């Protein structure tokens, strides 16, 4: 609210030109105009689709590797060094290479999202599974559970709060990564919309794009918080 007030006053007093800082009213009008024209929603839909595909791939890969690590610890030992190196590489830095390999299509953007969101999801699933209460695992042992049954019936439900937190963080990273990727190598999407608006000297549209990214992030985060609250009402009990 304070930021909005400062922005409103700064624009009203004409401290900067409207080219640099358009007034909130101006931005609101631009947002309505972009919504009516469908420009904003179409960019949003394109970015959201990319996030869904990339994030979905990350979740699948993270589960696959986590399960492999639990069931075959040797695989973890072999991949640990590679994964530790890869997770420190900023996904955006891969774009030039990805464009050379795959062109400017969807593949580089999806790979960038996977690179951004895979590791936080993997690390959280892994931490959740590794932190499973040994006493509960002993219950499974006494009941004659196999290792995969232990994983399915005890470790996974126990790790669910961790997993959902990892997915929440991964989704946030996906959003950041796709906007970056769309600014460098795209002809549509929210990132492209912002960059294109800047090229057209439309700072009002740039601000609309930025605000929409924030709102999208807020919505995604809110939905995830609700899912966590309803899906794992026992999360407070875990670790007691």
């Amino acid at each position: 609210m304070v930021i909005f007030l400062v922005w409103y006053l700064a624009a009203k007093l004409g401290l900067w030109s409207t080219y640099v800082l358009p007034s909130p009213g101006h931005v609101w009008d631009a947002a309505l105009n972009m919504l009516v024209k469908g420009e904003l929603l179409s960019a949003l839909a394109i970015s959201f689709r990319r996030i869904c595909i990339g994030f979905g791939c990350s979740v699948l890969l993270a589960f696959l590797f986590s399960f492999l690590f639990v069931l075959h610890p040797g695989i973890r030992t072999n991949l640990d060094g590679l994964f530790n190196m890869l997770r420190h590489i900023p996904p955006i830095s891969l774009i030039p290479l990805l464009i050379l390999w795959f062109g400017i299509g969807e593949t580089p953007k999806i790979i960038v999202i996977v690179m951004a969101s895979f590791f936080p999801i993997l690390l959280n699933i892994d931490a959740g599974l590794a932190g499973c209460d040994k006493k509960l695992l002993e219950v499974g042992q006494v009941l004659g559970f196999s290792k995969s049954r232990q994983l399915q019936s005890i470790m996974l439900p126990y790790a669910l709060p961790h997993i959902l937190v990892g997915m929440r963080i991964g989704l946030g990273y996906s959003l950041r990564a796709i906007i970056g990727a769309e600014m460098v190598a795209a002809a549509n999407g929210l990132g492209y919309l912002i960059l294109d608006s800047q090229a057209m000297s439309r700072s009002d549209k740039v601000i609309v794009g930025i605000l929409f990214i924030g709102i999208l992030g807020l919505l995604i985060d809110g939905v995830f918080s609700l899912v966590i609250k309803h899906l794992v009402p026992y999360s407070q009990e875990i670790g007691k």
Partner: protein
Amino acid sequence: MSDLIINNLTKSYRVNNDPYPVLKGISCTTDCSAITVILGKSGCGKTTLLRLISGLEEPDAGTIKYPANINIGMMFQEARLMPWLTCEKNITFGLPPNYDKEKIRALLTTVGLTNFAHAYPGELSGGMQQRTALARTLARDSNLILMDEPFAALDYFTRQIMQKEVLKIKAASHTGIIFVTHNIDEALLLADRILILKDGNITSDITIACQGQRDILTARFIDLKRQILAALQIK
């Protein structure tokens, strides 16, 4: 059912990289249709012995010979319920999907949790959680139940209710129970046989032949208590 035969069982743990012997060649034969209480002070190896019998740990040396067709159930010191499952789902945890629903309802009644079938462990008291754990063990039709100080964390009154429950189960099903405790009164109340564990060895073996309800304040049981205290060298 025949006997469980333990032969020359030894087990050590590593403390500061040095071996710390807990069980030093224990041998005994246990009737798998009776209540055998393993009694001893804290740290004497009671729980280790039970964990070896359950298969949760491997002995350093020695053997355990199980009777044919044995189905072992175990109840721990803590309830160890799955926090994401309701009381009823915890009881049926690990059972095949076609489990006997009538039996589970009857078990809920036995342990007095019919009204809490859909409550989560976090909503249950310590006693209720332990009763759920007891029902979970009983749901499996085990013919030998290992109990590791299951009522140690309960208050006096709840413990009494649970002890009576154990006796009822034993009377109704002839299930064998190996019960670990450091509580002499509990041992006297429940046991057909008391094995006293001290310094990693069984030092006394007391058989209590007694039909019907026991009163541990009678002269006979007070004498037995003195005998146990002497065996534990507690004055």
